[in-house]
């Protein structure tokens, strides 16, 4: 049996009366693309931020390779994350932004050229990122996440801002990473697109997990969108 790489154990995060994530328990396995799905405001981003140590949970915990993110040695070399496309200084070029990240994490500068080629941004590497389109920023976010050649990727809405060609590219890209044995956890509210991308799903609604498992088993012949609507109409 394969051991889960990412585990949420009774994770709860509230902001006073507003419960963003409620008792979330789930597992994510290596070599698979796992979709973390739900509408906007369902609690996906909050759960991912708890996983990555940016937000302190009210109770419960989440681990990557059995450790809290905070306790990982050189976390950047184990976990690549894309949380939003604003993570770059607009006054710096893509190369400069990546150099800063490489310096902070101790990654060899040669890796910058490799990841930029992987995300197809070679021609724009010396452009200031304020001139980037949203799609280009998403690609650069992916490059940043790949810099440490991590075995785990945590991506929050990476398809936002991508054109149809970009979405197809992203789908193939994520699948190829999973084939290399990497663990991919990708959140999205675009259910139709995710149906073609993911192997497993975690479906969250109003902070609560309403379904999880292999996408075919969860959907049972229905579309992911229909499955989601059926599940959330039952959920309180």
């Amino acid at each position, binding site marked *: 049996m394969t051991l889960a790489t990412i585990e949420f154990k009774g994770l709860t995060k509230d902001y006073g009366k507003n419960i963003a994530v409620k008792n979330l328990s789930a597992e994510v396995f290596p070599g698979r693309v796992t979709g973390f799905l739900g509408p906007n405001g369902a609690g996906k981003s909050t759960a991912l931020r708890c996983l990555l140590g940016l937000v302190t949970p009210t109770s419960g915990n989440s681990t990557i390779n059995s450790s809290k993110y905070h306790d990982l040695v050189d976390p950047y070399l184990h976990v690549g994350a894309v949380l*939003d496309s604003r993570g770059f200084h607009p006054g710096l070029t893509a190369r400069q932004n990546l150099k*800063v990240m490489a310096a902070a994490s101790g990654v060899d500068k040669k890796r910058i050229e490799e990841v930029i080629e992987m995300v197809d941004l070679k021609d724009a590497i010396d452009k200031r990122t304020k001139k980037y389109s949203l799609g280009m920023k998403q690609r650069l976010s992916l490059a940043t996440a790949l810099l440490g050649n991590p075995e785990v990727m945590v991506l929050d809405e990476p398809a936002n801002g991508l054109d149809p060609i970009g979405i197809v590219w992203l789908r193939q890209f994520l699948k190829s990473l999973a084939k290399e044995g990497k663990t991919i956890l990708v959140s999205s509210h675009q259910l139709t697109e995710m149906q073609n991308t993911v192997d497993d799903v975690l479906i969250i609604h109003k902070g609560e997990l309403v379904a999880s498992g292999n996408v075919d088993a969860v959907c049972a012949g229905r579309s992911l969108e229909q499955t989601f609507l059926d599940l959330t109409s039952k959920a309180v």
Partner: protein
Amino acid sequence: MNKLFVAELKKVIYLRSTWVFLVSSAAFGALNTSATAFFLGSEENFGMPGVDTVQGVESVYANAVSSYLFALIIGILIMTSEYKHGTAVATFLVSPKRHRVLLAKIAVGATAGFTVQLISYLVGVFAGFITLSFQENVATPSTSSLLNTLFACLISGFVLGIVGVGLGALIKVQVAAITGAVLWTLLVESLIILFFNDIGKYLPGGAITGVLQIEVGGPPSLDLEFNFLSPGASTLLLLGYAILFSGIAALTTLKKDIE
């Protein structure tokens, strides 16, 4: 820790605004020493010590310290840029042990402030010297006064770079933090030092003047009297501000959720 220091330093060096502020601070220092030399060398200097007195010439060179505002602003930028551009997420993902990031930022703030003030001193003293060279009967400043001014520049840059980081951590909105710092330094603090000298000597600007060890006064007609702490006490007070604002940065950064 070294890796984070290098990364934070790269952020500062790569930014055009850093270089704009560096040039501006040097220009500000040069303008202040030149304008003071010109004013004190003129016949209409309201009876203040002229450039033919040691006190007058030393006050010309002492104005090279006036660019410390730019050290403060660069410190503010080091912290607030993270929140303005959303890079705090990436920064804390690389190093989830936030105290290390903060220490690196404080170290870079101190380094940047120190550098800004060193350059401002060199350019300011040079500009003052050039302006004075066009005037007659110019007195010679003591070496110790030039060294005091150099020390005041370096310690003020070092401390205010750190204070800027702390201020940026406290007031995360960049425009508000910079506007507040400019208004405080150029207006509020100056007025307090001018009208409430007993309080003003304990403020950063008052402590910097204390380090300078020069006699400060206004036109005799205004009958102003200023007292500042001794250079040693002023230096300790400035270092106290650096510790205080490092503490503020820690309180406002280490535990808070990054949304």
